[in-house]
């Protein structure tokens, strides 16, 4: 018989201390207030909610949330104040864990989509699926982002913002190589990459920003390969199937031939696509919509276009990225928190954040956000076929296992077949908790 024990007090304190100590060297919150000040002001009967996120503070994301979205919510909901606490992305999860272990989590958090099943499996999150307001929002959400909110068939999060990758192509390089336009098929992509590579200029035809699933999934999925079965319980026969193997072989061979740049293998000398593309180091690469404002700010801006991911045997399939909203179990002021969560998925909040690079996870706002931000059009189109990465508490480990084996394949330490079989075997262990 399995024994069950619950000992929250001292354990939470000890783990909280450990987590805080381990993260003590990391940079501090950019919030103007203390993250531990979750409270309601009983004097004025004002409820103060803590909203934790990792919004970018160097552009307009964090400021739009703090100065546009939250004030509007507070105007519409007198008696509820929202304290926006912004942490660096690398620290947010550990801060949340430490706070949850200590029994003092924020009221609501904007969570990376890959953290949702992990946190849900720890029993940290409130199930949202049964709340009366959840269904209409879920029904209006894009299918890819919605898939990221579930664990074991239950909804633990609310889709908030989303993104995906599309093909950035350098018009000047294409013209110089005598190519009329962006490739529409994977075969054409690789043929163009070879033509666009000029070794004497350190110009690579294609940039692939790493061996992790986020970066290689669009190629593998579009070619008919994959990582796990549909229920995210096994990688056997999927991660090592013919579609995945063929695509991994192609990418490894392109790297060997010098048509893919240093970013694929990574390391301290690697130049990311976003850095190398405007400098002419990569003629093509996949990236999200956030690169556009960066390129617009450059003088002179690069002459480029954005096209859908080239199609393979299975079509044009990119990776779903973005964030969900999560509410910790037993969080204080639940009614006010629920109101705020609904507001963040309202038209006002979604379109305000869309203007600063946060694409809406709500399908019905797609046309309006494209009207306001025309460069979203390719990404909105791409999102219709984009897929979520394996939605499993073991995703992080699975991703590391796959990435490690791919690096070994690239370095010639193992064959493609042996590497992917090993990755599948290791991933099964990671998925066993799903």
């Amino acid at each position, binding site marked *: 018989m399995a024994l*069950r024990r*619950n000992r929250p007090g001292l*354990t939470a304190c000890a*783990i909280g201390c450990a987590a805080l100590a381990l993260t003590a*060297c990391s940079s501090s919150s950019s919030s103007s207030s203390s993250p531990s000040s979750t409270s309601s002001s009983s004097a004025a009967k004002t409820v103060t909610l803590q909203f934790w996120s990792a919004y970018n503070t160097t552009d307009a994301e964090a400021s739009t949330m703090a100065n546009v979205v939250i004030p509007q919510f507070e105007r519409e909901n007198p008696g509820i104040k929202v304290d926006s606490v912004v942490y660096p992305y690398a620290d947010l999860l550990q801060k949340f864990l430490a706070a949850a*272990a200590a029994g003092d989590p924020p009221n609501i958090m904007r969570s990376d989509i890959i953290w949702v099943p992990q946190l849900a499996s720890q029993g940290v999150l409130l199930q949202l699926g049964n709340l009366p307001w959840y269904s209409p929002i879920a029904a209006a959400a894009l299918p890819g982002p919605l898939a990221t909110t579930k664990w074991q068939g239950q909804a633990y999060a609310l889709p908030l913002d989303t993104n995906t990758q599309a093909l950035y192509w350098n018009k000047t390089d294409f013209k110089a190589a005598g190519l009329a336009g962006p490739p529409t098929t994977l075969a054409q992509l690789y043929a163009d990459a070879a033509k666009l590579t000029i070794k004497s200029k350190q110009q690579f035809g294609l940039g692939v920003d790493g061996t992790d699933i986020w970066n290689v999934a669009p190629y593998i999925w579009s070619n008919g390969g994959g990582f796990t079965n549909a229920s995210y319980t096994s990688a056997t026969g999927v991660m090592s199937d013919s579609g995945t193997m063929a695509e991994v072989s192609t990418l490894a061979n392109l790297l060997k031939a010098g048509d893919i740049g240093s970013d694929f293998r990574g390391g301290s000398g690697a130049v990311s696509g976003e850095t190398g593309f405007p400098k002419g180091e990569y003629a093509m690469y996949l990236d999200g919509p956030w690169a556009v404002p960066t390129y617009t700010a450059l003088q002179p801006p690069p002459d480029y276009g954005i096209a859908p991911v080239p199609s393979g045997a299975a079509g044009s399939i990119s990776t779903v990225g973005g964030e969900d909203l999560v509410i910790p179990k037993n969080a204080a002021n639940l009614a006010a928190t629920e109101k705020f969560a609904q507001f963040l998925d309202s038209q006002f909040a979604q379109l305000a954040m869309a203007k600063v690079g946060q694409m809406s996870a709500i399908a019905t706002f797609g046309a309006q956000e494209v009207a306001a931000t025309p460069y979203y059009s390719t990404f909105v189109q791409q999102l219709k076929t984009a897929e979520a990465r394996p939605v499993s508490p073991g995703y992080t480990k699975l991703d590391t296992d796959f990435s*490690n084996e791919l690096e070994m394949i690239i370095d010639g330490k193992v064959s493609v077949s042996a590497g992917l079989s090993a990755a599948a075997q290791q991933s099964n262990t990671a998925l066993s908790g799903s």
Partner: protein
Amino acid sequence: MIPVSRGGRRPVARPSAAAARGRRIATPYLLLLPAGAMYAVFTVYPLFRQFDISFYNWHIFPGASNPFTGLSNYSQVLHDPVVRTAALNTLLYTVITVPAQMLLGLVAAAMLTDRLPGRALWRALIFIPVVTSWVIVSYIFAYLFNAQDGLANSVASLLAGHAMHIDWLAQTWTGNAVIWLVGIWKGVGWSFVIFLAALDGMPRDLVEAGRIDGASEPVLWRKVIIPSIRPAIVFVLVLLVIGASQVFTQVYLMTQGGPYDSTQVLYTWAYQQAFTNFEFSYAAALASLIAVVVLALSVAEVQVLRRNPGG
């Protein structure tokens, strides 16, 4: 009314012998209490709790159910190929960096006990890395060994006569070598200070008597100096081995255990399991095994060195 003595002075109440004895016994414990309490709360309790957690499928959230799993976490740890790599890397780190730190520290201490010009400056320079943050040192070394514009590649290019772009930190053995180098560079100053104090405290007449008797320098070191500073050597050895078994920061910041976990050490793997993969019980089992091994090793070191004073 307060009684006064015949001299008009208030009588001094003399404590009973039992009270004085009680105070004498209690005083050291009271003085130790704050440190002892902190040690109990922040070291002893987490240590025992860690052992406890290692037998459950433990979840971080208060109130979550934590099923008892017996020894399954230990079995998982012992069958994990990454643990084998991490254990080997930790062992290599210990075997390479501990003797190097001790030897260099002893040599530096021996040189700086004599009247060397600028002795104070040299002492300070050797000790500065000890007080510099691990994080800063790790980032500086990562920059020095950067594949594009690191100093190491500039030197390599100069020696080779053509541009070199070695990605030191992205390869198994060069990555490990840089990790060892950081450990040695940062740790030499600590053993240096201990050895310096030991050498300064050593009776000079022993050495002088040896010299008068015609003993050569190697003989003097082997027969007189080393035995005289043996307690310091044992102290440095035990603490450096414990420290080496806990190697973490430079690995975490410079290679993140990569490529493909080949520079992983035990604590980076435990950390990754706990705070990236949320496998808290697995991490607790691994940390418990490390604690047992390091404790056994430390006891063995002390016993061996005490039993064998002749070296």
